[in-house]
């Protein structure tokens, strides 16, 4: 029963860890499927986290914080778009700039407003997104196996976790079932085809980036107003890059990227839980190795050793249109 509970709690933690990854990965999919390299997920996530915590702290409303986070994400996206779409700048250089800008701006503004060394004040419970208890949890507790699964695994997450889970089918639907999605996928593969069909390449790419900004904002709000209770400097801690790895690993598709996020989340959830445990034959697994697996598999994938990545054909190339 011990190992059962361990797995259940690891799975539960998986969702908590994977939520910002999933939202950022969906953001990355929109940007990259439109042909824009998006290593600025990290910076948008960080700005989102700061925006949410700062506004929630000033207004006492988690919802206004959420709006601010999405606004911050979109603001960064527009900078990226201005550089890469309007001025045909290098996508990677722009992304690096945005990530560094986010590191600087969050702390500068944070200190100016809150004078706490770059942190924001701890939010009271009602200015955060709390867990949502599902119907009948207490009744279900009586049921063996299913009870704990229902309590830990299905119920008791906060709103943003459920939004992340919802974002996946939604992204799939938009990409594969809507006119916008068809055009978006086309513009990342062959912008000439979109242009010659009389559709604006720029407008499509800007819209894709804006959606990405909104999603990164949600992810940021999750970090600082749902999972945490304030903003801490550099709190994105590379999650944007792991999300990017998940996008690549998921071959730029929502459902597979989602699975990659879950896998990466699970590895991270498992790492502290199996520390010190001797496994038969292999012995103890180093914590850092577990955390490094996402990066290792991504490199192997890019090198074509496991499957073949098929990035959007026109990604990173400026389009003269």
């Amino acid at each position, binding site marked *: 029963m011990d190992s059962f509970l361990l797995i259940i709690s690891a799975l539960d933690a998986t969702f908590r860890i994977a939520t910002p990854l999933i939202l950022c990965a969906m953001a990355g999919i929109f940007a990259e499927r439109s042909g824009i390299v998006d290593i600025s997920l990290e910076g948008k996530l960080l700005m989102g986290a700061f925006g949410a915590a700062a506004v929630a702290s000033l207004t006492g409303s988690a919802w206004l914080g959420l709006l601010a986070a999405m606004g911050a994400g979109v603001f960064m996206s527009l900078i990226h778009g201005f550089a890469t779409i309007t001025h045909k700048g290098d996508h990677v250089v722009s992304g690096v700039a945005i990530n560094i800008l986010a590191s600087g701006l969050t702390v500068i503004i944070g200190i100016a407003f809150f004078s706490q060394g770059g942190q924001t004040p701890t939010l009271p419970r009602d200015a955060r997104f709390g867990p949502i208890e599902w119907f009948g949890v207490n009744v279900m507790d009586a049921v063996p196996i299913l009870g704990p699964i229902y309590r830990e695994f299905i119920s008791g997450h906060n709103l943003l976790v459920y939004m992340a889970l919802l974002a996946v089918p939604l992204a799939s639907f938009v990409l594969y*079932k*809507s*006119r*916008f*999605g*068809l*055009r978006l*996928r*086309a513009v990342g*593969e*062959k912008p*000439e*085809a*979109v*242009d*010659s*069909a*009389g*559709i604006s390449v720029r407008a499509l790419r800007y819209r894709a980036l804006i959606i990405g900004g909104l999603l990164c904002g949600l992810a940021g709000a999750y970090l600082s107003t749902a999972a945490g209770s304030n903003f801490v400097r550099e709190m994105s801690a590379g999650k944007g890059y792991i999300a990017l790895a998940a996008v690549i690993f998921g071959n730029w598709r929502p459902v597979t990227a989602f699975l990659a996020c879950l896998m990466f989340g699970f590895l991270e959830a498992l790492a502290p839980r199996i520390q010190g445990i001797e496994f038969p034959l292999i012995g103890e697994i180093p914590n850092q190795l577990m955390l490094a697996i996402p990066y290792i598999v991504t490199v192997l994938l890019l090198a074509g050793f496991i499957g073949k990545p*098929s990035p959007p*054909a026109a990604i990173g190339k400026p389009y003269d249109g």
Partner: protein
Amino acid sequence: MKNTERSGATAPFSLELKGISKSFGAIQANKNIDLAVRPGTIHGIVGENGAGKSTLMNILYGLHRADEGEIFINGAPVAIRKSADAIAHGIGMVHQHFMLVSRFSVLENVMLGSEGGALLKTGREQTLERLQELSDTYGMRVDPKALIADLNVGNQQRVEILKALKHGADILILDEPTGVLTPQETEQLFEILKSLRADGKTVIMITHKLEEIMSVTDAVSIMRRGEMVGHRETKNTSTAELAELMVGRSVLLQVDRGTSKPAKVAVTINGLGATDDVGVRILDDVSFEVRGGEILGIAGVSGNGQTPLMEALTGMRTPTEGRIDMLGVTISPQHSVDPSALRAQGLGHIPEDRHQHGLILDFTAQENMVFGYHRAAQTGSGALMDVKSIKEHTTTLMAQYDIRPPNPDLPARNFSGGNQQKIVIAREMFPNPKVLVVGQPTRGVDVGAIEFIHKQLIALRDEGCAIILVSVELDEVMSLSDRIIVMNDGHIVGELPHAEFDEKRIGLMMAGIKEEAA
């Protein structure tokens, strides 16, 4: 030539262009172009690569904007600023490089741009129905669910046509539609075009293949160097006349070529074949010999195998069949030799496109003067390059070849076309190559430089070099060569010794017409 000399044009033209001009920087791609196309006809536009055909069509489709001129559709003036305008006016285009998303299905590609609603579901049924209808009317059957990447080129082209028709095209422009097709696919395409014509659509076909013009068009317009040089009813013209108009007859250049003294065989090519990356055969069973001290000219409309032949000769392309023996090395499918190894053995290579291959435009003249020879002993010692001696070397060559301005530190970009070409020529001729492969030696070069370059080639020949000369300028090939081989569609169509040079005969061969064995 004006449209007024056409006969029987009473109904308004479905398309009319008046005085279209377009420049890209210093290059004038279209000069005062007039064109009139009657409804319900197939109208051919011929011209060599770079004659300005594609630019003209891109203007018509809103991808470029003309500097001057007017466009009329069904007699009414229209403004076409972007492709959406062209589509709205019923113009559809099948580009040379297909505008298809290869990871999409046929259906998705056809829907792109006319989805019929915010969700794909609604438009899908309509599109399927319309596709069925179109394929019934014009005999184009394609599986809507198939991925573009899985279709052969002929079927991909059908998808392009279907897409244009679905968008409501009445005027269909096809840019070099047969370049990538097999003969059978070409036949099928022509059937489709004829059924479109029968249905009252107007078809404009851009090509450089004269046979096709003769077999499928009703009228033809001929372009050369950015200008419209003639309009003909197809039934009143011939391939020979078209070839003449297309290639033009500039003032025959007088070259004091002296007499050649062919020596031993320097290059032997046997059964050479090559296919491009989509599997189309671009070289087929090419065999010939070149002797030291002679210039072998290769004539042909551009795009008929000259480029891959040059690439194979210079180590830039591994042939798929046959072999080349020269300079003591053998190039074959099993044994590729890289360009620097060939250079070390005494090969010179003046490439067809100096901007793509021959020069690095951002490098200075002196840096370009050792390009490809930058590892040679003369350019330095050990890992270091001797910048001072390279500069002296460049200064000497600049004087010798009259390269202006004589500034070795100027980036190649800042020289005129003629002087850029002289840099390449000076570099490739200086080491006294035993074999020289030359492509388009005077493309984009002013008259004075042309004469100079020609003299240099003759001089090198007289020193015993075996020269293989590829040029789309028939005059140039005829005035320089000691022998001419004519290529068409990757084959050698015929060979003429200098005494038998005849513009008309060569023109026919260039059009792919074989002479009966003499």
